[in-house]
């Protein structure tokens, strides 16, 4: 009987430990700011952040969240459209891979924050520069991970497909790509959170709307609780998008998930 009780306790702990840890963290934070009398402009208490969150009208949040979401999703979609075919090309051609891969590494190694103002000046004041900045931050992990997945296909599968006289395109689409799906989805999960970061970086450089703009705006007025509230909304959006990609993976390619997650 004690064994059953212990197992039940372990199951409960497994289920509720993450939210309890979060609540404990918030309580410690709230307590520390009250006990130590930390001013809100240094570290706002969670209650002050919630107050700022509620004080800002819903349509204001909706407007900013939509602006950030729009740019993040456009940049993300562009990254997928470019990265997956590019990865397939890299996996098919060693020459192409050797020629273009170093350029991609250079692009990835360039601090986008430093280049962002130039991109804005070059591409104008529309959504385009923001989408391009998001794309630049997002596309690399998808390319690298997809190439790794495509090249990791077991040799016997490739040999089998060739023995059945499958062409290179068929081999890529029907053998390598399905095998690479776990890699692709891992990258897509990383990239979706990066796309939100990319949109915010772009909004810090030039924007009239968006959560990045809202945070910059709030700090310029020294409204730090409001800036933290903006940050909270951003984190929530990132988490929701992450879960959405996970949901898509579960629905479309459940076999690409580890057994415990199917």
């Amino acid at each position: 009987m004690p064994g059953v009780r212990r197992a039940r306790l372990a199951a409960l702990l497994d289920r509720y430990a993450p939210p309890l840890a979060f609540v404990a963290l918030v309580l410690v934070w709230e307590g520390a700011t009250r006990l130590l009398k930390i001013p809100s402009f240094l570290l706002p208490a969670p209650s002050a952040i919630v107050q700022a969150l509620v004080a800002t009208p819903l349509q204001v949040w909706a407007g900013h969240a939509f602006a950030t979401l729009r740019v993040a999703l456009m940049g993300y979609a562009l990254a997928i459209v470019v990265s997956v075919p590019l990865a397939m090309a890299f996996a098919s051609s060693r020459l192409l891979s050797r020629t273009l891969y170093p350029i991609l590494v250079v692009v990835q190694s360039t601090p986008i924050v430093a280049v962002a103002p130039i991109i804005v000046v070059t591409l104008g004041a529309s959504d385009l520069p923001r989408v391009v900045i998001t794309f630049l931050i997002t596309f690399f992990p998808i390319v690298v991970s997809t190439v790794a997945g495509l090249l990791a296909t077991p040799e016997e599968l490739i040999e089998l497909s060739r023995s059945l006289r499958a062409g290179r395109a068929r081999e890529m689409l029907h053998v390598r790509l399905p095998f690479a799906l776990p890699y692709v989805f891992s990258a897509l999960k990383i990239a979706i959170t990066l796309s939100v970061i990319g949109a915010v970086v772009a909004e810090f450089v030039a924007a009239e709307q968006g959560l990045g703009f809202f945070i910059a705006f709030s700090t310029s007025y020294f409204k730090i609780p409001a800036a933290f509230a903006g940050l909270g909304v951003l984190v929530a959006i990132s988490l929701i998008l992450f879960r959405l990609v996970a949901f898509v993976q579960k629905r479309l390619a459940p076999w690409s998930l580890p057994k415990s997650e199917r």
Partner: protein
Amino acid sequence: MKRLVKSCAALAVSLTLAQFTSVSARAAEHVTFMLDWLPAGDKAAIYLGVEKGLFAAEGIDVSIRSGRGSSDVVTKLATGVADFGTGGLAALLQAKAADAVPVKAVMSLYTLQPDAIFTTTDAGIDSLKDLVGKTVATATFSSSNVSWPLVLKANGVNPDSIKLLKVDPGALAPMLASGQVAATINWVTVAPAFAGPLKEVNKSFKALAWSNYGFDGYGLSVFASDRMLAERPETARKFLKAYARATQMANDDPMAAAKALKAVVPEVDVNTAAEQWKASIPLMVNDIAKKDGPGAFEPKLLATTWKWVAEAQNLPIEKLDPETAVSRDFLK
């Protein structure tokens, strides 16, 4: 048959409406206006002008964009991202001397420099000399940083005797309120936003305006791209006329200007915004502006503005004729 007639009639009405819409769209000239920083009370005039239909009355449709500093505005105008903008004249003179950018100042707004030292009453700072041995924070990309050592030298203070910290603009008030620095460098128009953090720690605000320490020259001005001025001179004239009128209206009723800003940027606190506009009025309405007329660039004060910039940048004074950086043709 009836249905056919109805469809034809609907089509005719749609076409007429589309035609009408496109004509009116063509009638309103579109211009893009770039603020030198994020929307705030001291930039409320343009919003008031749009709300009151002053630009529309001149046949101009204005899109307002926020910039990231005066130099950013000069760059955006030079590259055609915007048609008009506001910025510190020093930034334009500096850019002109370095690169002959195709941008001109077409209307002066601040005839007094807006730069100031912000401190608290308990810090014991009553003059620039009291800053010796203290730490002062400034925004990393502030145009004030260029003139700061010269203002100190002109007042007999060795710039090396003051520790200057360059930080994000959003950190300035918290650093002052928490006592990490004895003072910050800001434009006086920002002062109302410091109230919140200082109140929280029961400190009182105090400002030392650089204009009281011999720092003369034009501050915020309206810029326009050379392309705009060459291709649409009439629009430029009309735009400045409406902008001057909007500025006057905002001076007469700062709360109305703040509300117009709030209508477009709902995050703005109306009272703070109104205070910010009020703080900017003495920079625009003063003896210099009264003597030379609104919007004017008086040659001597213009030359003084350039002198400060040239000295600060270690440039020979003859490197730029400041007259080439302004155009007075569009205020007529």
